């Protein structure tokens, strides 16, 4: 045996020895999750979100009073600027109609979460389908596919060209005043964002070597899209979904604030509560606005923190 082949063998043995003896490897998802667990930002965000979800679930059950009953009607005189602030039986005080603000805050969390999640889901689902379709046509459809892609994307551009709040207001105005309207309006605004993001990500992956390799193996196009391109294009979409939960909650609050939300103002929701508090902000009851506002801010911050942490965890460039 020559020296060259000997060193060759030794080198190869060393290489084999260097690979871990565990039987399963680490997928990129699992690695990302491990990185996420180490991130302080992610933990803070996750804790905030968990508390918010907990609040949304148990809120109505632990609320000390009915959120709609005007129990202390006789103690509040909005036109004279006389309100009731924090006191032992009403922790957050009373609103302008003599309702317990703490109970309204607890119950309102559920509506707020529902609006945020459903709106984001609407945007994500439709945006994913549209963007995925455009991306698939653009990457593997050849000349014809590129044309289909550009038709789809021009529609998306039109949607994107409209100011988002204006679009939401017009949708809400056409469909009438209801919570469902708010969800749909906020969701539709998110569609082009998700569609563009997924398509862009797919285009990048579509021109990568492993897609070319799959083609040269003779893998069918549909399978290349589903098993190669899409799994690798998901990271930015997941991050965007987390981040847009925060925006959705704020936008839903804005629509409620404009009076396009739930037609029954008695049912508490943080956005509605903010609208109601506005009238009394400088006439005796600024705290009425502070509670829902702080609630919205902290929740949005929680989602943003988690989203940012996920962006870092999923970024393959940071993989060490």
């Amino acid at each position: 045996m020559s020296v060259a082949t000997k060193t060759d063998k030794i080198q190869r043995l060393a290489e084999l020895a260097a690979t871990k003896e565990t039987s399963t490897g680490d997928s990129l998802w699992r690695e990302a999750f491990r990185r996420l667990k180490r991130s302080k930002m992610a933990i803070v965000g996750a804790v905030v979100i968990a508390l918010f979800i907990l609040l949304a679930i148990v809120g109505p059950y632990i609320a000390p009073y009915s959120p709609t009953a005007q129990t202390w009607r006789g103690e509040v005189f909005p036109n004279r600027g006389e309100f009731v602030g924090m006191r032992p039986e009403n922790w957050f005080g009373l609103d302008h109609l003599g309702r317990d603000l703490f109970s309204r805050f607890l119950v309102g969390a559920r509506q707020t979460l529902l609006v945020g999640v459903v709106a984001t889901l609407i945007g994500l689902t439709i945006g994913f389908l549209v963007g995925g379709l455009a991306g698939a046509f653009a990457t593997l459809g050849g000349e014809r596919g590129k044309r289909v892609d550009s038709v789809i994307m021009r529609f998306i551009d039109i949607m994107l060209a409209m100011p988002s709040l204006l679009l939401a207001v017009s949708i809400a105005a056409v469909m009438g005043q209801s919570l469902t309207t708010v969800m749909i309006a906020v969701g539709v605004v998110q569609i082009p964002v998700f569609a563009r993001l997924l398509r862009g990500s797919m285009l990048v992956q579509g021109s990568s070597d492993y897609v070319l390799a799959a083609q040269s193996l003779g893998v069918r196009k549909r399978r290349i899209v589903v098993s190669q391109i899409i799994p690798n294009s998901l990271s930015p979409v997941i991050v965007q979904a987390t981040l847009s939960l925060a925006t959705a909650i704020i936008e839903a609050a804005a629509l409620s604030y404009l009076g396009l939300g739930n037609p029954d103002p008695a049912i508490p929701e943080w956005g509605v509560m903010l609208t109601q508090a506005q009238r009394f902000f400088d006439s005796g009851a600024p705290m009425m606005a502070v509670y829902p506002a702080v609630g919205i801010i902290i929740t949005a911050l929680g989602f943003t923190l988690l989203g940012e942490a996920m962006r870092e965890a999923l970024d393959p460039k940071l993989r060490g």
Partner: protein
Amino acid sequence: MSLLELDGVKVHFPIKKGVLFDRTVGHVYAVDGISLKVEAGQTYGLVGESGCGKTTLGRSVLRLVDITEGSVVLDGTDLAKLPGEEMRRFRRRLQMVFQDPLGSLNPRQNIESILSEGMVAHGIGKDQEERREKIKSILDKVGLPSNALARYPHEFSGGQRQRIGIARALVLEPDVIICDEPVSALDVSVQAQVINLLEELQEELGLTYLVIAHDLAVVRHISDVIGVMYLGSLVEEAPSDALYAEPKHPYTKALMSAVPVPDPEVEDQRERILLVGDLPSPANPPSGCRFHTRCPWAQAERCSTERPELRDVGGGHRVACHFAEEIAAGTLKLTAGEVVSATREGVEDAPPTLPEQAERAEAAVAEAEEAEEAEKAVKAEKADTVEAADAPEKADTAEEKAAEPLEAGKAAEPEPRKAVTTEKDATTEKDAKDAKDAKDAEAEKAAEAGKAEKADEAV
């Protein structure tokens, strides 16, 4: 009959422009008429500098890019004419190993999934159990442990990843494997391992390779026949040993002359042919012989008008040059570029001084001295330049000159293996500087600085 035959293969990419509707404004002639034959069980090496279209050719064989014209015949079937689904099925017999071992493996699939993808697509193996057995035996062949199955590409070293890439091609039991720069992304020590692996596999399984590379040593080691590509077409094709022993095409001669020899005495005797200019744009290839713009032996009459075909000059040695015999006999004179001693000082790190440029270079040096001692003597300097028979300096050219230091700085960077274009050089003052030797570089910079100031004043 050969296993794989390419006949007049052309791949032209349209260049599109337009706001709403795309218009085709031209073509990139990436592959422009290539015919070659790969015999069963042999290795065909394809070499050429980057941008010459060798990768595109490799991909066109697999129809990963559309073939504009010509035919690719594998074992009697013309792939260029196969409809989509049949082509997909035919790809089993024609596999590819990619340049970037990590980039060509899906980062989110484990090795088992990567290797079974192709088998699933072609219906090889009844169930995953059967496929796994096959994968294990292939992994063993390419020297990977069987516990690699559940791992992901990023958990392997570069050499191991390329082994995975080779294994992926092998599981389909192809007839031909196209290796596109199989080792250029690897460490030198690992390169040898992978090359040896490819050779072992060829012996064991009777594989046929089409190896695309720019590394002459790698290609020489592995190939039986070598084709040299230049700007989308073959310029020379010969059995490996014949090509290295006696390259006939001027381009091949220049390439070979750039390879250092490990023997110091031979190395001292070695001569280098310095080419002028860069690879022309494949969107606008030169007329006639594609190489005539850079050829040291380019002749006035035929080279720029008539495109040479590959012709046999004996012993299976095919050359696309009108004057191959004359060049070999030494009866043709150099018309551009030059032959220098490979060990001459400054050959590697600075463009050489061409005869017609020497004068200008001297002028520039004089100028540099002038600039050093007197910045205020604008007039004197102007006179100096005029005397030096340079282009007269006028206010309207001032802008151009202001941009000079930057450009010239770029040009002053070492440019090994290439000299600077001759024709262009003769015309502009800037290029005259390019022609200087490394020792002049500093003086040159000073000259430019002086000129830039002058230009400012003129503006």
